[in-house]
């Protein structure tokens, strides 16, 4: 029998659900009070949807890596590179440039995973290095120029309206659902949680830890690449500013959703909440004409506070 009044214990156990949900509600009320135009029309809803969709795709992949107890700092760079490949190759290859962009993304994921699994390089280090490679590659293939694509078919990928919402929204939700499916009902998903929750235990239980690590990084980069393709289609271009300031907001949205940076705790389903909070906050603040630099301060603080609140101190004694 459950008590009608939530007990202290219940509150504590569900803290990482309660915080983001109440945070989202408070945020909505706050932004609405501060700005009467916030969510006042369907157009503003669509603006918010555009703001969060590509972001959700990338955040889903990042969540998988964090659940596994690793980090992937190369997400925004792979996203940018993929957007750039898509835009650069589109005039000659058409939509065949999509598999090309995704294949390159997968290679990055494979390398990230391999560096961790085979060469024991801490993932934050390995992915920082590969992100530099992706940045450089994007610069090289584009020559640093913005690649505008005016073909309506290119744009239709993300912006076709279905039931009043742009198609990028459905792409994002589909990826989100696939990620949830992957983590909750497949043995692979269970293995991700196992590796993130107890590496030694996972190994002793006969899980192929190296394989799980490589595959998870590949899924993450695949999603980052897909996110880049969708975003390029949405803005009709590939350019070097894509994903530039997305690193901290990406991590923040995973952590705000309630996935612990220590791994093994949380889930992709939560990341939707985190993305909503972070992106709405971002949009809300920019609608209030708050300076970008101030917004960066806000996100930095949120990321720190949420990391403090969600890290599972019962399990980690030493944090490096």
């Amino acid at each position, binding site marked *: 029998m459950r008590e009608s009044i939530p007990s202290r214990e219940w509150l504590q156990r569900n803290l990482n659900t309660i915080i983001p949900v109440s945070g989202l509600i408070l945020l909505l009320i706050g932004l609405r009070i501060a700005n009467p135009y916030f969510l006042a029309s369907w157009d503003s809803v669509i603006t918010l949807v555009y703001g969060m969709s590509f972001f959700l795709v990338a955040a889903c992949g990042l969540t998988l890596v964090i659940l596994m107890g690793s980090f992937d700092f190369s997400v925004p760079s792979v996203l940018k590179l993929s957007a750039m490949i898509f835009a650069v190759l589109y005039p000659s290859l058409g939509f065949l440039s999509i598999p090309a962009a995704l294949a390159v993304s997968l290679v990055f994921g494979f390398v990230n995973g391999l560096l961790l699994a085979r060469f024991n390089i801490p993932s934050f280090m390995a992915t920082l290095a590969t992100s530099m490679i992706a940045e450089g590659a994007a610069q090289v293939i584009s020559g640093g120029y913005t690649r505008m694509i005016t073909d309506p078919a290119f744009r239709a990928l993300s912006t076709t309206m279905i039931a009043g919402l742009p198609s990028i929204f459905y792409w994002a939700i589909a990826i989100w659902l696939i990620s949830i499916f992957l983590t909750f*009902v*497949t*043995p692979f998903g*269970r293995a991700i*949680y*196992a590796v993130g*929750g*107890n590496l*030694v*235990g*996972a*190994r*002793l*239980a*006969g*899980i*192929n*830890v190296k*394989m799980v690590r490589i595959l998870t990084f590949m899924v993450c980069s695949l999603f980052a690449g897909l996110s880049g393709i969708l975003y390029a289609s949405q803005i009709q271009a590939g350019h070097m500013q894509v994903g530039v300031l997305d690193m901290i907001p990406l991590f923040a949205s995973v952590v705000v959703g309630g996935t612990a940076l220590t791994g*093994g*705790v949380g889930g992709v389903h939560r990341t939707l909440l985190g993305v909503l909070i972070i992106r709405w906050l971002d949009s809300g603040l920019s609608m209030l004409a708050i300076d970008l630099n101030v917004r960066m301060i806000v996100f930095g603080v949120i990321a720190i506070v949420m990391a403090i609140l969600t890290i599972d101190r*019962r*399990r980690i004694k030493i944090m490096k």
Partner: protein
Amino acid sequence: MDIQKQLLEAKNISKTFDNVVRALDAVTIEVRKNEILSVVGENGAGKSTLMKILVGVYPPDSGELYHIGQRIPFPRNPIEALRRGISIVYQERGVIPHLKVYQFLFLGLEEKFTRLGRLQLEKIIGIAKSVFDELGVRCDLGSYMYELPLSTQKMVEIAKAILSIRLAIGDSGAPDITPIIILDEPTAPLSIEERDELFQYLLNLKKNNSFIFVSHIIPEVMKFSDRIYVLRDGKLVAHHDLSVEKVSEEQLFREIVGRVSYYELYGGHEYGRAEAEGRPIILSVRNLTKKGYYQDITFDLREGECIGLFGPAGCGKSEIAKTLYGELLADSGKLIVDNKEISIKGEPHSRLRRGIGYFSGETGKELFLYWPIKKNVSIVNFEKIVRSPLKIVSVISFKAEKILAEKIVKKLRIKAPSVDTECYSLSGGSKQKVSVGKWLERSPKILILEDPTIGIDVGAREDIYEVLLEMKKNGISMILVSDDPKEYAILCDKIVLMRDGKIQKMYTNEEFKKVMEL
């Protein structure tokens, strides 16, 4: 008692944790000048608690402490203990690998050698040199700690303990006190040769120091101690002065694990004798060697047979078990499973695919403590619970998962409200049951068990034995590593006696029982 020789006496020490667990019950020990005193006992016997009381980590509930006949208060922290000449070298985590030897030696003592904020390096190195010369530690002061062999690292740690005591006593201006160095399982990570080296070092230092040697490795305790205290379940059960009396290894063994024979405890069990002869051989181990741990290990395991690797801790039995599951890599040799040779460099997941399962005896490490029971069970049983409705993806059936876990909970009599209960809230015995029990439904061809019943109560043991015997009857082969001779008598058909990394002898179950007087 010769009061001249007595250095420290701890009288009637009791300690209870959380008002429930009686860790120490009126234990009295005495440390004499210039001796190696051993304190032996099983895990959880209270050895570590007693030592931590002596160095001021825990306060005792009751008891008295005498230093050269004079009553003194218990130290309240390790620094007070140092001033009374007592220091401890812990089993692990002592050494900082990336410090140079002299830096490590003076770690935490730098204050005394600082002038105007600058460390007096020449002075430090000078002292370090003379200390090492005096104690007979041979190593380059400028090399890094990790470059030294493990035994030398331990020696440096011991030298550091002695030096800390000297400096602490020098401060308080107390008279010349013989230092007491407590060594908590110092030989655990060492190879056989390194152990001997360390002991020669200790024997050398005995003339100026006293050592309390905490261990459960019987042969070395017998070889190097002057006196032995045996602790069991928080009580002092025996005291041997080896200069006066002779003690056999078997006697010590029995005192450590308790006098009650398994036949009295588990009278109902006939050990599950398999008619193994003539059954197909499932695992052949040929000339398996890992330098410094075991050599030339050769044996055959038949279907439904259980072989026990028996011997004192440090004899290599545990390392062989780990090698068979790919947790440790052998240098050379052959492994043949089911008539197919497998690589000796394989990892756990490839061994599992070959039908080898493993329980490490370290439930805390192995379990996913924040997962419910059912997930901990299904982690090795995916094959049983996945469905592929669309043929492309495998999907876990939550219903099958639950049924599977409930079956195991029921069979092993695990006390839990439901299979959704998270494992951290279970008792030690139940955790162990979950850890061992997950293999029940997996039915590997070979199950390797390290200490399957360590640290759990009699009832839980009974349940685990029952299940293991049943698995054996169903044709699952096992390899057992344990500290408890009775466990071998209950589970094993053959017992391989090991010593110093080599196979000495092979006993049948009956012979083994006769030898061990079980």
